[in-house]
């Protein structure tokens, strides 16, 4: 293959290649831009959903706080469950060998030994 022949091959290829690259580049930019906008829409929708959930969370927080009010709890405890406010005279005192907090539920930090201390 002569030099002249090779040069004519390159000049024959370069134009379509250039056009192909140019078209790919333009398409790529448009595609990226379109994707970018699409992602923005998606994020915007998710942000709206998040805002809705946060609003719901705030409403639920208010409802929870209202339900947890002392007045409502006492009403439920006394009227519905028949509980009574503890009388100080009836609060049980226990001797404690080792200093620490004692739970009435026998929930202990050192197992059996500690329970023995309660009944000691």
């Amino acid at each position: 293959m002569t030099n002249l022949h090779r040069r004519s091959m390159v000049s024959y290829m370069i134009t379509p290649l250039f056009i192909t690259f140019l078209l790919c580049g333009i398409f790529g930019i448009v595609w990226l831009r379109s994707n970018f906008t699409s992602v923005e829409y998606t994020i915007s929708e998710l942000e709206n959903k998040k805002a809705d959930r946060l609003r719901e969370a705030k409403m639920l927080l208010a409802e929870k706080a209202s339900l947890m009010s002392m007045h409502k709890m006492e009403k439920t405890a006394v009227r519905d469950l028949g509980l009574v406010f503890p009388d100080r005279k009836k609060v049980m005192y226990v001797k404690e060998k080792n200093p620490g907090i004692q739970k009435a539920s026998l929930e202990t930090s050192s197992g059996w030994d500690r329970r023995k201390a309660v009944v000691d």
Partner: protein
Amino acid sequence: MRKRAIILNTAIAFGFLIVILRLADIMILNHERLYARAKMQQLKGEDVQVRRGIIFDRHGREMAVNLELESLYCNPAEIASVEKSAYVLSGITGKPLQAILTKLNSGGHFVWIDRKLEPEVARKVKETKIKGLGFVQDAKRFYPKGQLASHILGFVDIDNKGLEGVELKYHNALSTSGRKVLLSRDASGKTLSQGVDIESTGNNLVLTIDEGLQYIVEAELDRAMEKWRAAAAAAIMMDPHTGEILALANRPSFNPNYLSGSRNFERRNRAITDYYEPGSTFKIIIGAAALEEKEVSLDTPFDCSRGAIEVGRRIMHDANKHGLLTFKEVIQKSSNVGSVMVGMKLGKERIYRYAKAFGFGEKTGIDLPGEVSGLIRPPERWSGVSIGSVAIGQEVAVTPLQVLRAYSAIANRGLLVTPHVVSRVVSPEGKTLRTFTGETKRVLSQKTAETFKDILKTVTEEGGTARSAAVSGNKVAGKTGTAQMMDPSTKRYSTEKYISSFVGFVPADNPKIALIVVIYEPRGHIYGGVVAAPVFKKIAENALSYLDVPREDGPGDMLVVSR
């Protein structure tokens, strides 16, 4: 053929040239102007949604939060049938038809129809699909505990501006400034994410109030109001060592969620805004001063056998004749005659000096709006009767909080604290921005405070005026007060209207709470020992139980079993 090709090529080239020139015009020559116009179309200014911070009690329970509601507005120019629309809206919102008609006929492009609609109402309005109506997200302050602690929390107006209580005092900390953000939108008006937060929240407040203690105090005040058919009542519970207000309540009261249904006198925070003549609770001043100045000892005798004493042109009486009393018994039995004698020993200058030192006649500095300073006249303006009157708590005007603070100084070994209701300001992210610790100042020596505390302990023991304030299992130190009210019509002391009070602290030797109970105009009985002391006892018993404070009458080395 060739000629036609040349013409076609020239036309295409010319066409391209026109396009290139137009593009140059748009993109280069008029770029700035057109870019600005495009931006105006694409960007939408949106107000940042401003939200107040949350108010918590000392254990993180929500006392004031925000509800996310919608407010309804309209563009009157777009409303097709004004009468029909007004009729429909009136039926759904419950607003008067005429008021809505006026708004729809008002002209302009924006009129509020109704603010902060309930979600159900907003849904019904949306279903009508009336053209020209729109909704804006709006926050409504909500107090989930109802009327509990309403005088501390206060309330806000329709635009969430603090008007009373902590909401007013800490408005700047709780709120945040509004601003606009620009959001991109497409041709159909849909917004594109800009990654900006369109909500701005103020700082949160952590109160010193304990919801449990507040509930105990309010429940007992309600019972006392009912029992004594009183005109009003107030109670304050404080940590005597730090000045932290644990509970503060007044009756009558109001629910800040339904403000329009409340009246002015119900919204008054009597505990700090109303002053009264304290009566015998003021004897702390002459008693503590006499001990501090070494004018008396515990056993100094006072002859109260006449049951009356003349001061100036006035004769002051005891409720009962007591005979010979020691100084300790003068306080224990709340003898007016003995107190006047002690007052005379001290002299008006020293009484005035100690009253001022204990904070009377000055604001306590509590972080709530509307506090009054009370009144104690300087000695040069006292009449001949004044020394006797002041000694028994007349001719002085005090607030319940001032009295409680003075007794807390006895509980706190002579140190006067600054009461406060807010302990911390916390950012929305949870970072503590500011903490409040009240200042203290010494007003009595530790020894005098201890001695006087021992005297106050006898008040609730056998022979004292307030045995009904004694708490089972723990010693109470305190003092009763029964004060006549001034009748504004006769400008004389009323023989029917009294103020009964009891102030004290418990457990006396290691106080956890200081508490004052004031009952205004009780019916049936008038004495502090009968009316207010039992309320103190009930509140104190429940509070000690709630706080897991063990009884002191059991054997040593005992621990209370936690509930």
